[in-house]
């Protein structure tokens, strides 16, 4: 037996839990090893000191309160108690919020449906007015804005003439 094995079984030896073979080997080791013998003595002293401590009862009687809790948990609960459990309540609240956004808010906010196109009959007026306004700015060439508008008008007219 080496020191490591002896150290591991010191507590079992003091408690009288070792088989006879191991007990003999342990006793043979501590008779020859002063370090393990010192550890054995230390352990025995500590356990002896612990066993001499007196046992004190609690000054407060906890049992009635514990009993009340056990009785309360064991009683059957109404359905709404089940619904209020976080596992159920959180997804339900999220679902309600989504339904509100989908059904109620669009009616109130009327989020506009934006498209990049204007009515053909109005577009000619708009692009002409926009170009006339653009021509009044710095770095504006009236011929460039005019060309852009004319190309648009010609394209729109060609689209309109198509069957």
């Amino acid at each position, binding site marked *: 037996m080496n020191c490591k094995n002896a150290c591991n079984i010191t507590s079992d030896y003091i408690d009288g839990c070792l088989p006879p073979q191991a007990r003999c080997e342990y006793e043979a080791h501590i008779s020859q090893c002063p370090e393990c013998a010192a550890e054995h003595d230390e352990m025995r002293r500590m356990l002896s000191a612990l066993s001499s401590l007196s046992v004190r009862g609690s000054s407060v009687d906890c049992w009635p309160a514990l009993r009340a809790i056990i009785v309360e948990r064991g009683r059957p609960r109404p359905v709404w108690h089940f619904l209020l459990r976080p596992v159920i309540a959180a997804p339900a609240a999220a679902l309600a919020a989504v339904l509100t956004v989908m059904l109620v808010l669009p009616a109130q906010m009327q989020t506009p449906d934006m*498209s*990049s196109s204007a009515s053909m009959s*109005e577009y000619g007026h708009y692009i002409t*007015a926009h170009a006339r306004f653009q021509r009044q700015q710095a770095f504006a060439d009236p011929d460039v804005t005019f060309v*852009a508008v*004319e190309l*648009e008008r010609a394209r729109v007219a060609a689209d309109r003439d198509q069957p």
Partner: protein
Amino acid sequence: MISRQLKLALVALLFAGPGVFGATPGDLLRRAEEADKHVDYRGIKTVTVAFGGENAVVRMKVVHLKPDRTRTVYFAPALLAGIIVIRDGPDGWRYYPKEDVWEPIGHCGLPCGDAVRREALRNYDIRLVGTERVAGREAYVIHALPRYRGEAAHRMWVDQQCYLVIGMQTETSSGTVLRSSRYVSLQIDPSDIDASLFEVRGKIKPAARKASAPGFKVMKPSYVPDGYRLVATASLCVNGCACSHLQFANGVNTISIFQHKAGKDAPAQKVESKVTNTLTWTRDGMEFTIMGDLPRPELKKIADSTK
């Protein structure tokens, strides 16, 4: 020694700035704007416009008689060939060869003026960047770089002798050219321009009905991009309906918001703009259309705030 002289010259150039060319960019802009009042000219001009993913190149002849009469005849492409535009002061007419008729195009728009120029100088870093030869003439090159993101940059070529604008270019921040115009040949003060060129002869379409007050509460956006402000509100008559036109500008670029009462008829045939960004939507019984050379998310932001 040479390197010292070179350094001195560079320092002098830095301190002199645009003064070496005789005028500040602001002065040049003003002189360019007023040049038409002081010179007659005749020239061939090409205009290139990004149109539906392609570049349309348009060729035209421009004849100008000071102070404010201009005749433009379109040669190419075939789509526009034969169209004539005459501007006489604030009035303008357009001739369509297909219909053989002149159509009044109304007020042609006043030149930009001091207030617009100041606004442009506030919202753009306008610099004189050098000189170049255009149509055989020496020109100052002015560059306008936007101070706010999302705006296009502009370049202008101004004749060194008469300050006539002989070239213009609009480009994205990445350098892609959106539109440009440039004279390919130009005669300054030719003595043979006939005044009869600016007369409108032939059939003239009746002028469009004058617009009345809109008759509804005009909704305004609570958001416009940095540098823009509401500069005017106008009324249009569109298909017999009163339509309001809100005009926002930053001195160079413009945003238009059109609004009128939405019709109860079936949705009309729609057309998508190929020359500028456009958004159309309806809200609270009104139909709105916004136009401007801005990224679409910016237009949408303005649209969302129009209530």
